[in-house]
C-alpha cells in the first residue's frame, strides 16, 4: 500500500429529473468535480474533488444539485472520528504538516452565545432609535487624561492622532495575494462608503487602491512586504502585525504559485517566489524593541498617524497588552483563536491561542487596573459573527471590532476552508483571473455595505433597548451583560454576573 484510499468527504447529489444538462455546474467548478459524459448524455460528478463550496448549488438554474456529507464511515468511535483518522492517513502518506484555512471549526465553547444583553423596562426607559439620535460614531486612538495649559491659560492640544469611525466595525487584515484584487476592491470601496477602514494585510498596497487612503490601514509584518515611505503615507493608520489569532506564534507563507505578476508588484518581490513572513520580527524581542518599531513608524509619518499593534489572543494576553500600551502604540488589536486565515497549519489553528471573549475581558480589566486604559483603544477580532457579538464585545471593553470571515461571507464565501488551494470558486481566495472576475466589485461592495448597515441598525436597536444613546457609553459597561451556562470561574474572568443576578 503506497497511499491510503480516503473516501470523499462530500457527495454531489443530482436530481436527474431537474438536471437539464446545461453544464453550468461544470463551468462553475474550478475543482473539476462536474463533467459531461457524451456517451450517456448525462452529467457526472467526481466527489473526491468536491470541497463543498456550494458554487454549483447556487448557480444551478433548476436547483438540481445538493451536496451532502458522505455516509461512508469508519467504525463509529467518539475518540477517533473519521476526520482525525484521515488526518493520520494523510500524514503517513506524505510526511507533511497538515494545512488548513479559515477559522477553527472545532466545537469549542463560544462565550458570545453564553452572554445575554440587558434591556430597560419601566424605570429606565429604552430609547427608540427611529426617533432619537443614536450615536455609533467613535474615535480610535490615545486619549488625553490630563489637561495642560499654555502661559496664557489656553488648553494645549495634546491629542494624539485619532481614527474616526462611523460604526464600531472595521474590516480585518487580509493581504492581496491571500485574497483577490476584486475582493480588495470590494473591501476598500465598502470601507469608504461606510466611513470605516479596511486593512491591506501584509501584502502591500496595490497602486489602484491609493485613492482609498483615508479608509486604509496598512500593515507592517515581519516580512515587510511592500513597505516603503509611500505605503506608510498612503494610509490612515499603520498596523504592526505581531500575531494572528488563527496561527499564533506562526508566520505567514504565501506560496510562490500565488505570487502572480500583479501580486509580485504589490509585494515588491519577484514573481513565483515564496513570500515568507516568519513568526517573530527578528528585530523585536521585547517591549522596548516593539517601541522602537512604533516610534520609527511615527517618525516616518511625522506623528500624524495612529499605530496599531496586532497580537493573537494567547495565555498572557493581559500582560502583553499592558506592555503594548506602554510601547507608544495608539491602538491594540487582539485576534482570538477562532479567527480566519488563508492558510495555517491545522494543529496550530485548532489548538493554539485562547477565545477572544476571555482575552478581551482580561485585557480591558488589566488596563483599567493599571490606569492606562485611555492610553490605547482596543479592537478585537477572531470570529465576530453578528451585531450581537459586536455589542457584547464593546460591553466587555472593546472600542471596536474587526470582521474578516463575516465580510468574506458577504462576498460569497461558503466557508469550505480551502483557501490554501487557490481555487476559490467565489473569486475571493484566488489569483486565477477567470475566477477573480466572478467577484464583481460593484456587487460585492454593496453587499458589504448592506451587511454593515444592517448590523449598525441592530446595534442601535440594542443600544436603544439598554437606554444607551452613544456607543462610547456602552464600552466596558459589563453590567449590561449577564452570563448563562457558565462556571463561576468563567463569569469571574469575563467580569460578568450570572443571568438573574441583580446589580
Amino acid at each position, binding site marked *: 500500500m503506497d497511499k491510503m484510499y480516503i473516501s470523499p468527504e462530500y457527495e454531489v447529489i443530482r436530481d436527474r429529473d431537474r438536471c437539464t444538462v446545461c453544464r453550468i455546474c461544470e463551468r462553475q467548478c474550478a475543482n473539476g468535480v462536474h463533467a459531461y459524459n457524451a456517451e450517456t448524455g448525462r452529467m457526472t460528478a467526481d466527489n473526491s474533488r468536491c470541497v463543498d463550496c456550494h458554487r454549483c448549488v447556487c448557480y444551478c438554474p433548476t436547483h438540481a444539485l445538493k451536496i451532502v456529507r458522505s455516509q461512508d464511515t469508519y467504525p463509529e468511535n467518539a475518540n477517533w472520528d473519521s476526520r482525525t483518522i484521515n*488526518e493520520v492517513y*494523510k*500524514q503517513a*502518506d*506524505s510526511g*507533511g*504538516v*497538515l*494545512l*488548513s484555512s479559515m477559522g477553527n471549526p472545532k466545537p469549542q465553547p463560544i462565550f458570545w452565545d453564553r452572554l445575554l444583553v440587558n434591556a430597560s423596562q419601566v424605570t429606565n426607559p429604552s430609547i427608540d432609535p427611529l426617533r432619537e439620535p443614536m450615536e455609533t460614531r467613535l474615535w480610535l486612538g490615545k486619549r488625553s487624561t490630563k489637561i495642560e495649559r499654555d502661559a496664557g491659560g489656553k488648553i494645549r492640544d495634546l491629542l494624539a492622532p485619532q481614527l474616526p469611525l462611523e460604526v464600531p466595525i472595521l474590516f480585518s487584515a487580509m493581504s492581496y495575494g491571500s485574497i483577490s484584487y476584486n475582493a480588495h476592491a470590494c473591501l476598500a470601496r465598502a470601507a469608504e462608503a461606510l466611513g470605516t477602514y479596511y486593512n491591506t494585510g501584509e501584502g502591500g498596497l496595490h497602486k489602484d487602491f491609493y485613492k482609498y487612503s483615508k479608509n486604509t490601514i496598512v500593515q*507592517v509584518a*515581519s*516580512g*515587510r512586504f511592500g*513597505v*516603503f*515611505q509611500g505605503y*506608510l503615507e498612503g494610509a490612515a493608520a499603520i498596523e504592526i502585525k505581531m500575531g494572528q489569532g488563527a496561527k499564533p506564534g506562526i508566520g505567514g*507563507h504565501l*506560496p*510562490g504559485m500565488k505570487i502572480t505578476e500583479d501580486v*509580485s508588484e504589490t509585494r*515588491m*518581490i*519577484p514573481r*513565483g*517566489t*515564496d*513570500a*515568507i513572513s*516568519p513568526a517573530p520580527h*527578528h*528585530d523585536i524581542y521585547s517591549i522596548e524593541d516593539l517601541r*522602537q518599531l512604533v*516610534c*520609527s513608524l511615527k*517618525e*516616518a*509619518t*511625522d506623528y500624524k498617524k495612529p499605530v496599531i499593534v496586532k497580537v493573537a489572543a494567547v495565555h498572557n494576553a493581559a500582560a502583553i497588552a499592558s506592555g503594548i500600551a506602554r510601547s507608544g502604540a495608539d491602538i491594540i488589536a487582539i485576534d482570538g483563536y477562532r479567527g480566519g486565515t488563508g492558510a495555517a*497549519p*491545522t494543529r496550530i489553528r485548532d489548538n493554539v491561542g485562547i477565545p477572544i471573549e476571555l482575552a478581551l475581558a482580561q485585557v480591558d480589566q488589566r488596563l483599567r487596573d493599571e490606569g492606562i486604559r485611555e492610553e490605547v483603544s482596543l479592537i478585537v477580532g477572531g470570529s465576530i459573527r453578528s451585531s450581537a457579538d459586536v455589542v457584547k464585545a464593546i460591553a466587555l471593553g472593546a472600542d471596536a471590532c474587526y470582521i474578516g470571515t463575516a465580510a468574506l461571507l458577504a462576498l460569497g464565501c461558503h466557508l469550505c476552508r*480551502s483557501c*490554501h*488551494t487557490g481555487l476559490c470558486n467565489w473569486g475571493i481566495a484566488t489569483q486565477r483571473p477567470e475566477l477573480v472576475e466572478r467577484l464583481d466589485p460593484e456587487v460585492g461592495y454593496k453587499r458589504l455595505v448592506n451587511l454593515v448597515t444592517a448590523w449598525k441598525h441592530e446595534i442601535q436597536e440594542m443600544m436603544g433597548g439598554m437606554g444607551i444613546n452613544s456607543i462610547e457609553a456602552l464600552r466596558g459597561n459589563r453590567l449590561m451583560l449577564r452570563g448563562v451556562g457558565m462556571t463561576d470561574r468563567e463569569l469571574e474572568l469575563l467580569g460578568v454576573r450570572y443571568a438573574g443576578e441583580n446589580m
Partner: protein
Amino acid sequence: MERVNAEGMNYVQLNALVRSCNQSEIRIVNCIGQRYIGTGLSDKKITIDGTPGNALGAYLNGAEIHVNGNVQEATGDTMNDGTIVIAGSAGDATGYAMRGGKIFVEGDVGYRCGIHIKAYRENKPAIVIGGRTGSFLGEYQAGGTILVLGLHTDGKPIVGNFCGTGMHGGEIFLRCSEIPPRLPAQVRAEKLSALPKEAASLVREWCALFGKDERMLLSSSYVRLTPNSDNPYKQMYIAN
C-alpha cells in the same frame, strides 16, 4: 550646509529639525544615541559625527547618510533606496528587510544582519561589510547581495552560526577560501575564483569610500552562498 549640534538634544527634536531643514546637506555633530535619524528621507545628505542610536535611516527612501563613528542596532531598517556609509562598526539587525539602496560598513556588524532583504526589478539592496558578522547573517534572505570582506583581525570566523537559514533568494559572498562549517540545508555554497561583475563593483565602491586597496580584495578567493531551491517550504505541507 546646515550644521546641527545634537548634544543633549532629544531625538524627536533632532529629527524634526532634520526633516524641516531646507538645506540639502546637513551635518550633525556630537551625535550621542539619538534614534531614527533620517527616517524615510528621500533627498538629503546627512553627515553624522558621533554615534547615532537605533534605527538610523529606517525606511530610507533615497537620501544619503555618512557616519563618522559606530552605529547601533537596526540601521537601515526596511530601507528602500539611498546609501548609508558607516566609518565604524554596526550593531545588530543592520539592513533588516532592506529592499533597495546600499549599506557600506567599514568594520564589523552584529547579529541578524541583512535578514529578510529582498530584491525587486531595479531595486537590488546591497550590504558590504569590511570585517566579520555575528550569527544569523542573511536569514530568510529573499534577494539582494550581502558581501563580507573579512578584514577583521581578531581571528574570529567571518560569519557566526545559522548563516542564511531559510534563504530563498539573493546571494551572499564571503571573502574566505574555505566554505564555513555548519551551513543550513537551505544554502548552497560554492567556491569562486573571482567575484562576479556586480559584486566586484560593490567591492570597488567600498574601497573608494574607505580608502582601501581594491586589488588585494578583488584577487582574493570567495565563497558564494545561494538558496538551494526557490521554494524551500513547498514540500512541507499536505492539504487538509
